[in-house]
């Protein structure tokens, strides 16, 4: 073991209590999401399903500083802030970015279930860091190790835990900003803003097409899964399950291709030539630039503070 390592002994139940508490928190968050989503009024039954069900721009009709913001400046400024936040290296600055992200969700009047769903989607990946990093990080001089009684073969590095927490906080801070970025304008407007920001129009067209097809295929996929279970198919860990799922994936592809070909032919015959018509004009007001400047400066200020400030030993890593 390297020199200058502080060792703190703790009783055995501590790690289990912490782990159990985290697990409970995770389950509670899932229940909360289920509860919040359950209250959402869903169009029930009858007729052709509505494929235009929006997912990323569900709050586009709302009103907030984010809704009134010119999408071009919004996309550019928030992306800039996101990258700055992702590059932070110290916990206090990352925590500040987290507060900014949370504030953005509140200001944009996003219902809790949308950011919550995003956070839960990241849970598995981030959980891996929190569980694995404290016990696998190599021990360096100046580290603090927690050793639990009867578990002395598994020293627990505080530096590793800090590193994992830093990653989690940054990931959450950026994820919180995604809904204010995307949900506060119709998705087609956001994509138009991308075109205005010099993203190739062909790429934007494909994003729009793929975005639409996602819902169509998800519906198709669910329909096929329902049909399979109606015929008695049950997922198990065996080759037959894999064969049936491989076949259904193939069927999904065949149906999707045929359907898309028909739609594309219909679009071309109506004069589609690579761009969708639209009269959307962007007007940037001074206030829009001001908001943009605020976010860009906030991001840069965080990054500069992060690199310049040094913390007392023990918090540094």
């Amino acid at each position, binding site marked *: 073991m390297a020199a200058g390592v502080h060792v703190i002994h703790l009783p055995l139940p501590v790690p289990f209590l912490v782990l159990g508490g985290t697990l409970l928190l995770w389950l509670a968050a899932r229940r909360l999401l289920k509860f919040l989503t359950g209250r959402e009024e869903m169009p029930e039954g009858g007729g052709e399903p509505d494929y235009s069900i929006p*997912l*990323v721009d569900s709050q586009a009709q709302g009103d907030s500083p984010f809704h009134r913001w010119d999408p071009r400046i919004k996309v550019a400024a928030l992306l800039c802030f996101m*990258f700055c936040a*992702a590059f*932070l290296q110290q916990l206090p600055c*990352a925590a500040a970015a987290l507060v900014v992200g949370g504030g953005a969700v509140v200001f944009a009047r996003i219902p809790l279930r949308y950011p919550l769903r995003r*956070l839960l*989607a*990241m849970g598995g*990946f*981030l959980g*891996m860091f929190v569980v*694995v*990093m404290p*016990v*696998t990080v*190599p021990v360096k001089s100046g580290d603090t190790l927690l050793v639990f009684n009867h578990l002395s073969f598994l020293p627990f590095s505080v530096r*590793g835990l800090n590193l994992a927490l830093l*990653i989690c906080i*940054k*990931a959450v801070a*950026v*994820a919180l900003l*995604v809904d204010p970025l*995307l949900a506060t304008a119709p998705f087609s407007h956001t994509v138009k803003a991308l075109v205005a920001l010099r993203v190739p129009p*062909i*790429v934007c*067209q*494909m*994003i729009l*097409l*793929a*975005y639409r*097809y*996602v819902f169509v*295929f*998800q519906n198709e*996929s669910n329909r096929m899964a329902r049909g399979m279970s109606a015929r008695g198919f049950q*997922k*198990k*860990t065996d*080759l037959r*399950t*894999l*064969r049936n*799922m*491989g*076949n259904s*994936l*193939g*069927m*999904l*592809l*065949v149906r*999707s*291709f045929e359907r*898309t*070909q028909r739609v*594309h032919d219909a679009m071309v015959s109506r004069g589609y030539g*690579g761009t969708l018509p639209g009269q959307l004009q962007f007007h940037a007001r001074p206030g829009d630039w001001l908001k943009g400047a605020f976010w860009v400066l906030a991001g840069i200020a965080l990054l500069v503070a992060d690199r310049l400030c040094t913390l007392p030993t023990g918090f540094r890593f």
Partner: protein
Amino acid sequence: MHISDGVLPPSVTVGTAAVALLFAAWSARRTDPDDLPKIAVVSSAFFVASLIHVPIGPTSVHLLIPGVVGILLGRSAFIAVCLGVVLQSLLFQFGGITAIGANACMMGIPALISGWLFRSMRGPSLPRLILAGATAGGLGIVLAVVGLALLLVTGGEDFLGVAKLAMYAHLPVLFIESAIAAFTVSFLFRVKPELLDMSFQAHAAR
């Protein structure tokens, strides 16, 4: 498995984004504009596949299918994977916005390689085709997981443990993806074989 925001060091985030842009530009140049809707289809299928879960014992994994995307699209596969990754990130936060470049490289380059392998391995007979499909499907996952581990390790030796765990955790996925790719390819061969030839013909015509 998708890398979220804030994991990779700045240089790697920017570097992978640049590599992804280069590959995407190359992939788009090699793509016939008439094929754009097909690419959007495969992107969406790539996305939807990540919502299909396959059980392993008490738990389950979702499909990744970089191999199948490569088989279906050939050189256009990279742009399809890029789109899929963008959608996954925007819609579900599978992978962070700032890590889109890294995730696109992690899944897109394996898709290109396994697509190329499939086309050079396939034969006229069904068994050869199934073998090629299984190899391409498995190789797609192997390369993607190695890519994930390499990207994680760029963060320094502190990330070695996480990278190793991520690799071991994907071992069962390798077999599942290999089998799924083989069955999907054999299904397509029997039902709509021109889908398997699409990318091939597009390049032959060039």
